[in-house]
């Protein structure tokens, strides 16, 4: 699997600057990085849990840590432990994609990922898509095209559409449909989602 830290050509440093709002999280994270480095050194198989343990997660470029049980999903860790409620939980079974985040640049269901299993990986959530005050083109076009109604599916939908544009600069309508085929929107906003994503693709090329 590729580790694509160079997504969208943003340097890690530049990205951290852009994500300045999470500076407090980053500061807590620094001691956690050290703890994690020590933890990953043991010789024999290491068994942890079921008690809570310190888990370090790199979220939107910032190192964060939380004391959680191994059964905690990434979606729960983000929302409950790290106070990042942009990622939504709807079905909690991998069937609706509302909880979509990127791990090492790849969209996955955070409700079916254990937080402990996401250590050492590059996690990107909806909170980390904008560059400071500058929205991601997909976010901007979602607003422009009014591509949401209740908005509950929207963070996951945007993470799917933005991931598509990372890998495909000239998506067809069918490509957008495939990329969002797992994202259920019960308000039925799909046509506007498709338009917004195609417009964002144009914008990113310009």
């Amino acid at each position, binding site marked *: *699997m590729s580790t694509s830290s160079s997504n969208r050509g943003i340097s890690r440093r530049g990205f951290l600057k852009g994500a300045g709002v999470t500076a407090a999280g980053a500061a807590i994270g620094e001691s956690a990085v050290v703890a994690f480095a020590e933890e990953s050194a043991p010789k024999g*198989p*290491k*068994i*942890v*849990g*079921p008690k809570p343990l310190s888990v370090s997660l790199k979220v939107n470029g910032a190192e964060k840590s939380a004391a959680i*049980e*191994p*059964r905690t*999903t990434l979606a729960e860790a983000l929302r409950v432990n790290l106070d990042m409620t942009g990622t939504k939980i709807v079905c*909690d*079974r*991998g*069937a609706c*994609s509302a909880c*979509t985040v990127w791990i090492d640049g*790849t*969209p*996955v*269901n955070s409700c*079916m*990922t*254990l937080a*402990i*299993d996401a250590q050492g990986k590059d996690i990107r959530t909806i909170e980390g898509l904008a560059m400071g005050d500058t929205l991601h083109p997909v976010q901007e076009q979602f607003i422009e095209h009014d591509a949401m109604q209740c908005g509950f599916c929207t963070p996951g939908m945007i993470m*799917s559409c933005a991931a598509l544009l990372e890998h495909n600069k000239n998506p067809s309508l069918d490509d957008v*449909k*495939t*990329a969002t*085929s*797992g*994202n259920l929107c019960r308000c039925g906003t799909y046509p506007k989602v498709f338009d917004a994503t195609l417009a964002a693709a144009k914008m990113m090329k310009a």
Partner: protein
Amino acid sequence: MNNFEWADAKSIDEAQSLMTDASAYKAGGVDLLDLMKEHIAAPKRIVNIRNLQGFDQIKEDGGVLHLGPLLTLAQIADDKTIRSKWSAIADAAANAATPQIRNMATLGGNLLQRPRCWYFRNELFPCRKKGGEICYAQQGENQYHAIFNNQLCAIVHPSALACALVAHGAKLELSGAKNQKREVLLEEFLTLPSVDLHRENSIQSGELITDIRVPTPRADAKSIYIKQGEKESFDWPIAEIAMVLTMDGETCKSASIVLGAAAPVPHRATEAEQAITGKKVDEQSAGAAAKAALATATPLALNGYKLALFENLLTRTLLQAKGNA
């Protein structure tokens, strides 16, 4: 979800040494977490095999395609080698689940996932598969259940990859303790409820799938997979078909035909294979083969529609194979 111990295995030996009867291996974790959230599985320890190195290979060697068990469905769907001669396998992966799940789900986990029968997945129904007395699907909501071999327990085998791999005559390499390896035909590894009501295969405790081996089909073979869901965007299949056909002009020389979402195992349509082999493939012979395939079906109250569906899909797929010849 119950709480558990967690261990991240760095090698096969380590994974197996961490394994106990109350433990479970985790690859992508998609099926395991689902079963745990529904209280159908409650392992005391999870042994993570996702980070084992060297088990995501795609390599053709001496007439055999080797697929690593940790390949994701997305990797299988996107691979040019697989698509070149084993397109049924690539298409099965490309059409399974959602893009997100395909990024997480592994080949090994896909083959070993438990059935999706809603009585099995619901802890309130102590069904036969879970050690109870009753198969609730027999009298219940059985529109998505099996039309073959459905008397004891009417699950359909959930794995799209199994459907395509059985059509291709794939074998599994299984590694047990002390590096003991065995090779078994996938078709024989997957078992009917009459063999073991409580499991869908013959994996031994602690064993790992370490390689999936698919024979290279003849250069002129057609490898096809089609899936029918109830809706166009992602869905479980209500019918799926994988076939590998070799043709001599318009005449079928050999056929391997498998129906998915039809039986508790990927269902080998031997009657159809016999009916079409040696025949010129046209609407009449394809239709007759499809009829033969369904002749032994034993539909339940609500899944009779699957007979017409499979018959049409099978006819169409045979004609499509000929069209590509």
